[in-house]
């Protein structure tokens, strides 16, 4: 998987023979697969053939911030969930919480419980999806397996059909539970200002309790799979901790009063690259802390820490970029709120040499720690009889004005902010979407990978996989992304010479063989 692979060797030799011809090679990855989102990468060399700058581009935009203007604000939970069909529940929930604030109504206890129960269920389901379907195959099947194998089907073979069935049916059950309360698993409809649309019944509770038991067991099982197939392998650990995947940045996540990770509510906490608390603030202050930078070469905006100012996609102590998602959440918190997860939390940091962990690939493990937490939290809530309290909705009475809602989406902190007229018609909306928080750091990974691997115009095949791996670790969500992030194009690595001419483009065919195409722009 590093350039020590046979394919890599073979290519390096061929490359040396080819001599000057390097400068006429193209290399492509198109599209980057198995991640909820694509991108395009352009690498520019200086005259010495060293990487001058690698650009990560996002080629699509949908403009939700604009076209929600004029819509009735109560439609936001359903409209904004279309930002992302992978984590619709996250957008739905962030929007719903924004509505509570906007209508100045505090949901009754039952409503809060129902919402968080549903949200935990969703987190279990989504993290499962990522580990087994999207990110996992790299490890479970192995990064250098044939691509036709590196997918859920490959996973099925690796873990055995029985366990595979377990995975699939677990996920199906969880999604059925979401539908039971929210109407649909994709784009649910339960969120209303001041509560939820539907009463929670004892029968539902029973089903959730049973599912939660299995979910906890399932999470444990998944961690075991990870132990056996990944942590037990030295080269994987090396890979995870390798420099190319390590960036010192700030980390952001929601925490409860004990600074434990919380997905549904709490304050936003940011820690420095050294792991010190840098800021802790309620979501309503987000605009003081977070800013978005615009580059002409990407439709995506790049989030950074406003007080520090935009310093470009660089890491280190004086960076202003930060990261979100599982690893960031673990880094930004002091622990997990549930026993089993807390144990895993401790093990995670001891194994990886203490807080904060800067290894991007550790996201995969962190995600499983969260999976366990989500399952435990789900179990807690499912046994809480306040779910059944008769009052599950309060009708808002105050005039709507403005509201901010925040949750931890699977892929990171998610903020919705609406401003309406007195009839509750949206005047302005602002959306800080999980993946967008990471876009600067993703760009950084790309730049690093390129710089670390491309020398003297020599473009080793490994650069491709490194970048794909990096991507999957972030699990950038195409969909969230597509509100202002890529929808359909593929990630391609293109190398330009000093004059900007394309000299190489790298891709791999579906037998896993790397092919090099002569530059068309000769």
């Amino acid at each position: 998987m590093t350039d020590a692979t046979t394919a890599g060797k073979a290519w390096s030799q061929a490359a040396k023979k080819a001599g000057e011809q390097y400068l006429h090679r193209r290399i492509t990855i198109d599209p980057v697969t198995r991640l909820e989102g694509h991108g395009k990468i352009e690498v520019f060399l200086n005259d010495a053939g060293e990487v001058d700058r690698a650009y990560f581009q996002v080629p699509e935009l949908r403009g939700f911030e604009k076209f929600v203007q004029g819509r009735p604000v109560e439609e936001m939970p359903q409209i904004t969930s279309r930002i992302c069909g992978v984590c619709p529940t996250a957008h739905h929930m962030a929007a719903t919480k924004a509505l509570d604030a906007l209508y100045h109504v505090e949901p009754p206890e039952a409503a809060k419980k129902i919402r968080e129960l549903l949200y935990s269920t969703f987190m279990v389901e989504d993290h499962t999806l990522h580990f087994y379907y999207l990110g996992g195959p790299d490890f479970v099947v192995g990064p250098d397996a044939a691509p036709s194998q590196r997918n859920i089907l490959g996973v099925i073979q690796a873990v055995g059909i029985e366990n595979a069935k377990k995975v699939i049916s677990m996920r199906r059950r969880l999604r059925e539970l979401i539908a039971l309360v929210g109407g649909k698993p994709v784009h649910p409809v339960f969120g209303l200002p001041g509560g939820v649309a539907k009463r929670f019944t004892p029968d539902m509770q029973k089903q959730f309790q049973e599912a939660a038991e299995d979910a906890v067991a399932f999470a444990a099982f998944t961690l075991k799979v990870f132990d056996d197939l990944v942590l037990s392998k030295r080269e994987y650990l090396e890979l995870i901790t390798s420099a190319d995947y390590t960036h010192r940045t700030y980390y952001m996540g929601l925490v409860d009063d004990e600074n434990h990770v919380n997905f549904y509510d709490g304050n936003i906490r940011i820690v420095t690259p050294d792991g010190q608390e840098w800021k802790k603030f309620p979501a309503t202050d987000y605009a003081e802390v977070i800013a978005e930078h615009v580059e002409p070469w990407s439709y995506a905006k790049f989030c950074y820490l406003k007080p520090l100012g935009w310093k470009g996609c660089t890491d280190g102590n004086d960076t202003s970029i930060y990261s979100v998602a599982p690893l960031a959440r673990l880094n930004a918190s002091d622990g997990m709120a549930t026993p089993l997860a807390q144990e895993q939390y401790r093990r995670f940091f001891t194994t990886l040499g203490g807080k904060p962990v800067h290894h991007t690939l550790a996201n995969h493990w962190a995600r499983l720690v969260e999976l366990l937490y989500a399952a435990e939290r789900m179990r807690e809530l499912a046994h809480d009889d306040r779910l059944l309290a008769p009052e599950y909705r309060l009708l808002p009475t105050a005039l709507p004005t403005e509201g901010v809602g925040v949750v931890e989406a699977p892929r990171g902190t998610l903020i919705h902010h609406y401003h309406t007229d007195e009839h509750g018609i949206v005047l302005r909306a602002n959306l800080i979407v999980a993946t967008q928080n990471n876009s600067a750091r993703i760009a950084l990974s790309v730049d690093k990978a390129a710089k670390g691997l491309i020398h003297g115009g020599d473009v080793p095949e490994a650069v491709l996989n490194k970048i794909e791996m990096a991507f999957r670790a972030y699990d950038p969500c195409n969909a969230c992304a597509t509100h202002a992030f890529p929808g359909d194009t593929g990630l391609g690595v293109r190398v330009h010479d000093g004059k900007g001419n394309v000299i190489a483009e790298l891709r791999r065919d579906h037998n896993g063989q790397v092919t090099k195409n002569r530059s068309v722009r000769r």
Partner: protein
Amino acid sequence: MPDVSSNLSQAVPLEAEQPAFEPRVVAFFCTWCTYMAADLAGTSRMKYAPNVRVIRVMCSGRIDPQFVLAAFANGADGVLIGGCHPGDCHYQEGNYNCLRRVRLLKRVIEELGIEEDRFRLEWISAAEGDRVRVVINDMVEKLRALGPLQMKKEVPLRPLSPEEHELQEVAV
């Protein structure tokens, strides 16, 4: 500004056909009142603008909002609906149903960028031949002034002035 109407104008190659813009109006008249009134205008040899084409329906209640949109979509510069006066519907209430639809449809098509003068509802009884003349002439005049159905002027993209930025910050 909706760009919905934009290519509508493309669907109307009027300029190509005749240099002077002649609006095209599709009218939906109910058999019992307004169509009769138009006949009366004819038998009375009243003269009015030749820009209107009448489609006869039994009752203004039959007019499906789809018909109005289809007319605009196919290149009409205006749509006129004529029915019996309130209380006079030959079918008792059809014209009220027409009225309800038209009131709602007006809001929709105006939001989609079609000027309100392009879509008109008139109550004209079988006896009001002259009203047909007056209404049609008036509508055609207004449409001449409006010109062909087309996209409104686009707001040119511009950065916000510092003041406006201020406002934004304060507002939100």
